């Protein structure tokens, strides 16, 4: 894996956004050849989305030939609810960019048949040619998407009941009322994300530090599902200083020493104007 360590949240968000931008532009997407991006929600990727919107606004990046697949969505929450992941993606990203709405895929937590919805999602990913770059985050309990501790590391898109930790972590978005937080979600599986050509996990903040430690310095373990990516050929973890607080000094020094190599991935930063 690559472990890219930036000083703070803003720099980490910017690095991640530049990486996504370069990957899209290098791919030279067109009407016959879309770039597929897997996307997360939550407070961690917010800064990254802001930067991507900025790049679009400056005319440096276009999402016209990009297809997106979000990781998850709550079950039973009305789509227009301000805390649904549809609302999050619309208000924090889709509203501001030039993506074709038909190419923005999010699981439907209000589908009649949830299992059929999950299978259909897997099929859509396959039809799109698989995911080129799956961007994700990590929960305080080390989960990727809603693959809670104990999830199979070869799981596919399915319905999951949320762990207590996750419900508590989400309560702040529901007026700190635990009874209002959804208890089930549709989520891509660990296996689904592992199928992507490349995976980028963004982790910021001291409260995620222990999960990052478990994910990269301990073994592959279904109780910390992000650890599965130790077995993916192309994984990047992008984090800030605070997220490294539980790692060994040796690990941090090693990867910090590699920053000049990592930075070649984002410098020079490419632009659609370059043609």
């Amino acid at each position, binding site marked *: 894996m690559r472990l890219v360590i930036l000083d703070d949240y803003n720099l980490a968000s910017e690095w991640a956004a530049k990486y996504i931008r370069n990957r899209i532009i290098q791919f030279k997407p067109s009407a016959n050849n879309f770039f597929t991006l897997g996307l997360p929600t939550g407070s961690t990727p917010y800064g990254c989305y802001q930067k991507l919107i900025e790049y679009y606004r400056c005319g440096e990046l276009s999402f016209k030939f990009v297809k997106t697949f979000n990781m998850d969505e709550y079950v039973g929450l009305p*789509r*227009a609810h301000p805390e649904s992941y*549809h*609302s999050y993606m*619309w*208000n924090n990203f*889709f*509203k501001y960019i*030039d993506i*074709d*709405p*038909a190419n*923005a895929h*999010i699981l439907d937590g209000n589908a009649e048949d949830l299992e059929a919805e999950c299978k259909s999602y897997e099929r859509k990913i396959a039809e799109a040619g698989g995911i080129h770059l799956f961007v994700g985050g990590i929960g305080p309990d080390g989960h990727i998407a809603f693959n809670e501790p104990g999830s199979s590391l070869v799981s596919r898109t399915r319905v999951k009941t949320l762990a207590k930790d996750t419900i508590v972590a989400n309560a702040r978005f529901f007026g700190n009322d635990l009874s209002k937080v959804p208890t089930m979600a549709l989520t891509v599986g660990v296996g689904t994300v592992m199928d992507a050509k490349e995976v980028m996990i963004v982790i910021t903040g001291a409260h995620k530090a222990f999960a990052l430690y478990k994910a990269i310095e301990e073994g592959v373990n279904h109780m910390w599902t992000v650890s599965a990516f130790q077995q993916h050929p192309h994984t990047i973890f992008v984090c800030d200083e605070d997220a490294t607080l539980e790692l060994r000094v040796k690990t941090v020094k090693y990867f910090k020493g590699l920053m000049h190599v990592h930075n070649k991935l984002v410098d020079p930063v490419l632009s659609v104007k370059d043609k």
Partner: protein
Amino acid sequence: MPSNKSVSEAPITQLLNCRILRDHRLQNEDLWVREGKILDPEKLFFDEQAYADNQVDCGGAIVAPGFIDVQINGGYGVDFSQASDDVSAGISLVAQKLLEHGVTSFCPTLVTSPPHIYHKVLPQIKVQDGGPHGAGVLGVHLEGPFISAKKKGAHPERFLRTFSGPDTVMADLMDVYGGLDNVALVTLAPELEGSRWAVSELCQRGVTVSLGHSVANLSQAEEAVRHGASFITHLFNAMLPFHHRDPGIVGLLTSEHIPAGRSVYYGMIADGIHTNPAALRIAHRAHPKGLVLVTDAIAAMGLGPGRHKLGQQDVQICGLHVYVAGTQTLSGSIATMDMCVRHFKHATGCRVEEALEAASLHPAQLLGISQSKGTLDFGSHADFVLLDDELNVKATFISGQEVWRKTTQEQQ
């Protein structure tokens, strides 16, 4: 980008680079319009997978709901209370000109008149939608004749009326007005014998009842409100002044006896002449959500400075003052609605949102039409104005169509 038309073939317009008034705040959001209504772009994105056909750059302008004037007697030489064989021509002329002031809907107002005038004029004024031809007519405002002789103002005393008795109020109303079709608002004095029945009857028929030109005390006013009255015609003017032991009609602003779930609104002419700015501030601070800006404009509005003949009278226009020619007697208001909005904001120091809502949301709430007018909520009629930071009108839209735009040659 062309839209993927799965629900409607109609073109979708996106107004960008603007600050829209929504949920009582100016927000940096785009305004989306289709088929004359404000569209929810999130639903459009996810349900229809569609996007805009046309994008309009608003250059950073403020976008506010179109202004609604519920008290206007005429303008540009037209007097709505004149007996005319072609009342609609006069209404159309004024309606067209009002677009320049950001007004997208209005209530042509008739002052106290003899029955034959009402019988001749009222049938010629119809509720109608606005458009490129002019602002929409929401219904007529009948100011009088059931008002107090002691507070008649400029209304002709010989045509004032009272109710014959509690059982005959409907007959009296029909006898005078000839009918209540296309009537949105009636101003009456609640201390008149039998007026409480008139208030009930009118409210039951969907007419908004306003208190004005009256010497009522607070109890009489509160009783009228209990029976359904919900507006005060030009607060402070043509009513008893506020007194600390009997606040009169003015006391409705802070009365404890307003039935639950209901609100009393009050019209204010914020032209800097008819109400002292200190009085405007007192009213606003006492009951900010009830303030409705009205022009109460007379036929002289819109005519340039100098001497003009209006009906039988000569008037002299000097700035925003209109005098009976050769005297210092004020003859009515000629401030336009956008001038009133600017003056109101300046005099009260209120937020931009409050000034704009006083001319849009509050009148719409008063008339019970805020589901479709007076806001930029999804599903509302797309009647709106583009304003600069000083609240000058740059362009006016009705049902999503641009119906007026300021050109550089225009003055003011």
